[in-house]
């Protein structure tokens, strides 16, 4: 036995100790991190851990008015789907609508009230302080009786929140409330007023039509109510028992609807209205037998197929064929997009309305159906601001005629051409208050920012437009509790009015909406004691509707005011010799007018036609590209009479050689981490002309020139080879087509 000396003893003790320590630590290390099991303090009544609850509300990502169901688990929103019982979208939902979650949980949301310390920095303040400041300024203005020097400017707001705004204006002395939305089809409203006497959107029955003729309207992507249109399209293609519907698309650059059409006709940009009148001419002279036939033939004499063929680049044969097909089939003509965003947008719409009239589509199944009155009539205290009014507002601001500008969810600095100088004009306003959810370009100009709720956190209601053929109203309710210290628009208005000493009988937007609904309920003859039940079931369903006959269906159609037809050739800004290309900006289904650019899912969604992500691009015809020696990714300088921007080239197969197209939506300087400093905004190139009749911006009427800069960038896209190369990917018989 070896003797153990003192040294060894310590060694042994050391080894034992170190071993124990190592063992203990190892056990600690391999342990899974402890998770907590955190219960509710007081559970909501319908809460059950591990089980999802669906709440219905209304989508606010575009103005289509789809109903949505939001899946909630453990108090968090997990998914947005269409509300299956909502007649607009019938359970379906587009990409942008589903990305609403990205807006709710966006890391760049405004979280507290902010005040601009005049050095371009914002400081967080308390709500009381913020409301107090606004109330004080409004009080001063009211004391001076200068309600006309207070301007309320919001985005598109539908439903009874407008009523609350109206009350607010009365209480505190605001004379004007304007709603500005770039995507609003102002020309269509105007044209319908002039031809049908109704400034509303009728129901375009794509579902049941056999022959859909679209002039520039991207009904599958961005036009009016894309999800409802797509449902209709699916039915038109494969659901109709009599016939597979035919789709014709007239536009200089193939949109999503163009790609799905049977025939894509690249008419000369700006001549779409003329083409419509050319077709009308053929119908009026050869097919139409109505009492006013002579009047029509007379009004359309100059629009002979040969003239129109020369003007539009569409052959006479095609014009005559389309006219015949359009007349003999159950047909529908629609217009939108760039085709109606020229200087003669209203005239173009009227020409298309005329086509529908001549082919007898008004009030017909598969045609244009005017909805019955939803029965929610309310006096509107606002007006939809067109571009011209916005310019007037800018001038007023510049001339120091506006003391307080209250903004809500609208971004005119982004969606108006920079040459409109809206931004500079805003600088002259002593107090700009922005009620917004995000720090966008316009909000960044504010002196006071009041953060608003996301639409999934607030109350409201909506009457979808275009409606679906009968009265429908939807309720939007909060589906999650507030994430941050934000308030809804209505609540801020109530708080401000109270701070100014006004007696307000409603405590919140919720109370107001409920009150309005109870009154409507009573008007419709409901038993007052049953309102609670009615309200609960309406909330549960998210939508309330009443099937009524459409006013116009079957009844006699009012004669068409033929004298409203007018010159339809749009003027293009810029000299053709200097600016050889026509700029074709277009709305994308990913960002719409730019509002979707802060949603990471939308940024990562390949553009449906080019598959490009995260950037802007300039689309060129392959022939033009060869001529100019341009390849994909070459950075081009695009210059119009009012500006220059730079973006990489994309060679697009289906665009006229004399047109360059650019998507709208990117090019934000402010709007959170996902949107900022990405791509360019083609609206900045637009020469600010407008339609004389509606005052809407003619954003499709600008000529440009392009210059290769020599720089190259990698245009990130998901597509590789975009030809089937004989592989039978599209089906066994595709070889003949390929």
């Amino acid at each position, binding site marked *: 036995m070896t003797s153990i000396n003192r040294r060894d003893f310590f060694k042994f003790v050391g080894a034992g100790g170190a071993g124990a320590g190592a063992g203990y630590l190892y056990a600690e290390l391999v342990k899974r991190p402890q998770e907590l099991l955190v219960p509710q303090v007081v559970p909501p009544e319908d809460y059950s851990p591990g089980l999802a609850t669906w709440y219905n509300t209304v989508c606010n990502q575009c103005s289509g008015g789809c109903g949505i169901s939001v899946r909630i688990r453990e108090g968090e929103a997990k998914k947005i789907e269409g509300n299956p019982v909502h007649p607009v979208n019938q359970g379906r939902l587009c*990409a942008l609508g589903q990305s609403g979650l990205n807006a709710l949980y966006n890391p760049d949301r405004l979280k507290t009230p902010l005040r601009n310390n005049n050095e371009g920095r914002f400081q967080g303040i308390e709500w009381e302080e913020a409301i107090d400041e606004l109330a004080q300024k409004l009080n001063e203005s009211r004391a001076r009786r200068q309600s006309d020097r207070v301007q309320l400017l919001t985005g598109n707001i539908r439903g009874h929140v407008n009523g609350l705004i109206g009350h607010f204006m009365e209480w505190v002395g605001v004379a004007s409330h304007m709603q500005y939305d770039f995507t609003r089809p102002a020309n269509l409203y105007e044209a319908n007023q002039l031809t049908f006497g109704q400034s509303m959107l009728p129901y375009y029955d794509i579902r049941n039509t056999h022959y859909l003729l679209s002039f520039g309207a991207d009904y599958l992507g961005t036009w009016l109510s894309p999800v409802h249109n797509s449902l209709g399209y699916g039915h038109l293609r494969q659901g109709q028992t009599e016939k597979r519907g035919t789709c014709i698309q007239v536009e200089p650059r193939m949109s999503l609807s163009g790609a799905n059409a049977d025939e894509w006709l690249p008419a000369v940009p700006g001549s779409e209205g003329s083409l419509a009148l050319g077709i009308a001419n053929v119908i009026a002279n050869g097919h139409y037998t109505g009492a006013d036939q002579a009047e029509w033939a007379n009004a359309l004499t100059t629009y002979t197929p040969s003239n129109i063929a020369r003007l539009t680049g569409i052959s006479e044969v095609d014009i005559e064929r389309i006219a015949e097909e359009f007349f003999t089939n159950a047909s529908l003509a629609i217009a939108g997009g760039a085709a109606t965003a020229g200087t003669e947008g209203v005239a173009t719409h009227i020409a298309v309305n005329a086509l529908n009239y001549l082919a007898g589509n008004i009030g017909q199944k598969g045609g244009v159906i005017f909805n019955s009155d939803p029965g929610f009539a309310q006096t509107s205290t606002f007006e939809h601001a067109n571009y011209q009014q916005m310019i007037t507002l800018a001038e007023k601001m510049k001339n120091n005629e506006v003391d307080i500008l209250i903004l809500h969810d609208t971004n005119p600095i982004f969606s108006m051409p920079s040459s409109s100088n809206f931004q500079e004009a805003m600088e002259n306003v002593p107090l700009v208050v922005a009620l917004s959810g995000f720090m966008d370009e316009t909000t960044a100009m504010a002196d006071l920012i009041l953060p608003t709720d996301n639409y999934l956190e607030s109350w409201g209601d909506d009457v979808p437009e275009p409606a679906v053929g009968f009265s429908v109203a939807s309720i939007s309710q909060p589906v999650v509790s507030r994430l941050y210290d934000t308030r809804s628009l209505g609540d801020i208005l109530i708080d401000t009015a109270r701070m100014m000493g006004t007696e307000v009988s409603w405590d919140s937007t919720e109370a107001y909406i409920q009150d309005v609904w109870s009154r409507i309920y009573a008007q419709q003859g409901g038993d007052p004691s049953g309102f609670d039940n009615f309200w609960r079931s309406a909330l549960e369903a998210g939508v309330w509707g009443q099937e009524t006959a459409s006013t116009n269906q079957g009844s006699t159609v009012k004669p068409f005011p033929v004298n409203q037809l007018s010159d339809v050739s749009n003027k293009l800004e810029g000299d053709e010799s200097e600016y050889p290309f026509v700029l074709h900006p277009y709305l994308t289904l990913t960002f719409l007018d730019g509002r979707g650019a802060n949603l990471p899912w939308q940024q990562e969604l390949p553009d449906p036609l080019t598959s490009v992500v995260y950037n802007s691009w300039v689309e060129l015809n392959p022939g033009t590209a060869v001529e100019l020696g341009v390849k994909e990714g070459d950075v081009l300088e695009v210059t119009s009479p009012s500006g220059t921007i730079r973006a990489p080239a994309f060679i697009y197969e289906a665009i006229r050689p004399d047109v360059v197209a650019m998507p709208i939506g990117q090019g934000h300087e402010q709007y959170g981490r996902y949107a900022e400093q990405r791509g360019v905004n083609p609206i900045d190139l637009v020469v600010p002309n407008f339609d004389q009749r509606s005052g809407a911006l003619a954003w499709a009427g600008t000529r440009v020139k392009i210059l290769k800069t020599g720089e190259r960038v990698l245009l990130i896209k998901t597509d590789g080879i975009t030809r089937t190369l004989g592989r039978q990917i599209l089906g066994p018989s595709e070889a003949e087509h390929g």
Partner: protein
Amino acid sequence: MSVLDTIRKYREAGYYKEFDYHWGMTVDLDRCTGCEACVVACQAENNLPIVGESSFAQRREIKWMRIERYWEGEYPNAKLNFIPMFCQQCDEAPCETACPVFATYHNQDGLNTQIYNRCIGTRTCAVYCPYEVRYFNWFTYTWDEPLERQLNPDVSVREKGVMEKCTFCIQRIRQAKDLAKDDDRRKVRDGEVTPACAQSCPTEALVFGDLNDPESRVSKMANDPRGYQVLEEQNTSPSVVYLQKVHGDEEAI
């Protein structure tokens, strides 16, 4: 012989005594508009990461459902075709033969599985898949706070080194089976499972169901004379049947 008969022929030789289901999908190309609602639906449902611009530039995007574009002809007669592409849940899946650890295998429901905790990331399956619908996690992607609050708790969040692909929304199938059991049914009824993509599709182009059941909607759709399988010649026997687009100049079927 319709496409469905071909599929059935292959299934007889399978390695299960009995198939519970044969989950399958039909894609009507005459309805599909390429709107990509399904792409976002899948992203939302299945916790697909936001990979960021630089990963995208390196073609490291992860999209279980994608829309492919194929052009025909030249201007002014250029035509564009869209085709949704996702895992075809092949009966004779080449990817399954490739996996050294059986992280991907065929289960009794006719699904081509992908078991994340088993996957060791050899990426062989992705090479073997003729449809290129397998996506590899090159990094552990994170969500900017509070975006992670939208993550679906019924679906794993994948880490670096794991392959992933369309699962036919297994969590939804599982839930439907769960509810069927509550009713004392062993089998779910037609229409009780709708994957996220099919649920969202605004044109109702996607139909999902059990191909074993001749009465199911998907079986009836698959029997359409327009039905075909992509890359049929590869003999992968996909469970997804595409219905060919009807061209304007042809007579409607």
